[in-house]
């Protein structure tokens, strides 16, 4: 075994394979780097910026930065954790997130990271955007108030389901989740409730219409386990992690 393909992450030596990013290598090594828009099954996006790490004087996104030999990477520093907290607070401020009434509460990765990073308040004034819901689909409900524009549904739909239904539109703060149908409604697409895209949302933007609120508060994914221990899990994925 050659020792060439390894770098240092928070002082721990991490092996990588050629072509891997820092995030991919860290995951294989079982090291958790906070993230939202990354998922190992899909191409990297690099938009949430929660996975920023220090790399020899620069700050880069671990999910898009190629791993290289002898890199010195820092992730778990007070400075970076504070930056991540602020990014999470920005995401809370720019959407309309009401955890107590949200079906995803306890299973939500945004909320879990907020707890993990010690978020106690918004810090920034809420933007209170007006965003449309979409209840046109027989089995799925879309609550754009909770969307964090991570495009995971878009990537899952295009890269896994082979349907390319979900995508992002608009510009700047008016960026929004849209669906590829002439009417723009999800109900007019061939989206299925069993599609990977329908289950990939890290927050509570894409939800099934039935079977909600049955899992009692207190028994949900992150109720007893911090996200840095169990990873970015979905309800369906208990037992594995991403």
């Amino acid at each position: 075994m050659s020792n060439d393909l390894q770098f240092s992450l928070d002082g721990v030596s991490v092996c990588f394979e050629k072509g891997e990013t820092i995030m991919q290598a860290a995951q294989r090594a079982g090291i958790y780097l906070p993230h939202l828009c990354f998922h190992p099954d899909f191409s990297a996006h690099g938009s949430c910026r929660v996975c920023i790490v220090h790399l020899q004087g620069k700050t880069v996104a671990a999910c898009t930065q190629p791993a290289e030999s002898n890199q010195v990477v820092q992730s778990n520093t007070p400075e970076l954790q504070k930056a991540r907290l602020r990014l999470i607070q920005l995401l809370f401020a720019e959407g309309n997130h009401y955890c107590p009434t949200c079906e995803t509460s306890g299973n939500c990765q945004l909320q879990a990271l907020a707890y993990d990073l010690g978020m106690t308040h918004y810090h920034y004034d809420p933007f209170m955007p007006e965003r449309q819901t979409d209840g046109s689909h027989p089995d799925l409900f879309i609550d754009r108030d909770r969307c964090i524009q991570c495009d995971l549904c878009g990537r899952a739909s295009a890269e896994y389901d082979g349907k390319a239904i979900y995508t992002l539109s608009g510009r700047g703060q008016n960026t929004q989740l849209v669906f590829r149908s002439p009417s723009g409604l999800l109900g007019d697409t061939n989206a299925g409730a069993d599609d990977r895209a329908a289950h990939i949302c890290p927050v509570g933007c894409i939800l099934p219409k039935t079977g909600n609120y049955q899992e009692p508060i207190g028994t949900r994914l992150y109720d007893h386990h911090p996200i840095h221990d169990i990873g970015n899990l979905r309800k369906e994925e208990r037992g594995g992690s991403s």
Partner: protein
Amino acid sequence: MLKRDTEWLVPNSTFPDWNTERAEQMLLQQHPHPFSPERILQSLVLLQLRFGAVTNPMQEWLSQKSGVALTDIRALMSFYFFLEQDKPPRYHLRLADNIVERHAGLTSLQESLTHRLCSADCRIDTTSCIGLSDHPVSLLVNGFPVTHLGPHNLDELCALIINRVPLQKWPRSWFAVDNRVHHKGPLTSYPYQRGKALTQARGMTGDQIIDRIGEAGLRGLGGAGFPTAFKWHWCKQQAEPVKYITCNADEGEPGTFKDRFYLTEQADQMIEGMVIAALAVGAQAGFIYLRGEYVYLYTHLERCLRRWRDSGDLGQDFDIELHLGAGAYICGEESAMLESLEGKRGIPRNKPPFPGTVGLFGKPTVVNNVETFVCATYILQQGSAAFKNTGNEKSRGSRLHSVSGDCRQPGLYELAQGSSLRTLLELSGAHNTLCAQIGGPSGALFFEDQFDTPLDFENPGRGGSVMVFNKDRSIVNITRHFTRFFRHESCGFCTPCRAGTVALDQLLDQYEHNPALQAKSREDMQELVQLMQHSSHCGLGKTAGLPVLNLLQREPAHEQ
């Protein structure tokens, strides 16, 4: 060979009715494959220009013809602000909203226009800088620039609009753009001989051409200052045989208009530079990405390209296509420009890979600014030494500066690299100067104690523009304006920029209007700017907080 007939591309106040036949014919005149997915944005832009809007039926038709989902067409419409789906008014006035225009009375002019034209067939709104800050107040009327609007001609403008006078009959002088260079240098005065540099290049190998550019010490003049020879060399050495040359003519940095000069007066030098680059790296195709605000130069550039084709220098081994932007500042970022050239929303790419490795359509691509290509032609014609002997050690040659704001003679000035800001201020007749913004909002604000700073690649603000502010101007106002600009122009991809620019705007408001919270907002802004600088996906987000930082550095926290 396409005729590329754009006789219709003139100031118009009436647009022909849309029908599929007319639309298809027009699009086919411009491009053999107007319905290919990568061409879709250009087709939208051309439809917008020809018919004044891209209405829903037009979008549906384009979607059917191209196979591009209607949702993706709508996504483009929502990203590029010059694309409109509502039936056009007879006159659409887009007032340039840069801080220089504000200082020249934009706000009261706009109020007056809105009030007096409320019942006219006219729409009035603002747009980011249109590259005419030396002609304040300037505006686009149905896409074409009208300069020097002020109290002296406001009555006449309103009368023309109320009386529905066709744009073709408006005073011609109103559309005049003055490209005089007030202080000339080598680039603006050398005896250019069309094709001479290219003949030189033809007698050399690719490596020799690149060496020549390298010996001259040419660095990119779009703002980043990256060594041009290195870019070309990198692209050349890629094994992939298909390569592209792209020219960034998306001059969107507020207060910058030097490329306007080159595109108008030295388009041949720019085109020749692109052909030389193609020879050097072995590229087969080139693209000029012209910002939508400069659409009035489209026909002129097409004619220049045609002349190069007629002389056989273009169209055989290498040809150049002219693309139009549509009101998105972010497309000046090189990878966003490539996305836009591919017909997509202008979202900057992850780097690495850089365009030299994976660029346009995934192929190795050279991306250079207009002025950089102009300089390449200069170097090949006049020799590396001629270029190298001007400027200083790390910043060779000379460059054109766009000067606007509070000075007697706003306009264009060519100075050797490394000339001081003070020299430029004196030449332009700036007086009672408080400060100057160098390199646009993403550059730096210099105060009197910094006026001796050399304008070169080693100092902040490398984009070739200076906005001058006198002592009556408010730094907070300037800062707020720039901050809103970035908020408006953020592409929305990454969290720190999309949400950070909004939060920063809110905090600045709080800082200005809520004295009780001033210390806290100050602290929050400082932290947020740092967050944006460090964590943003691209240069826009990284620099969007700089104006606020400039303000805070200049206004020390009050002692408690």
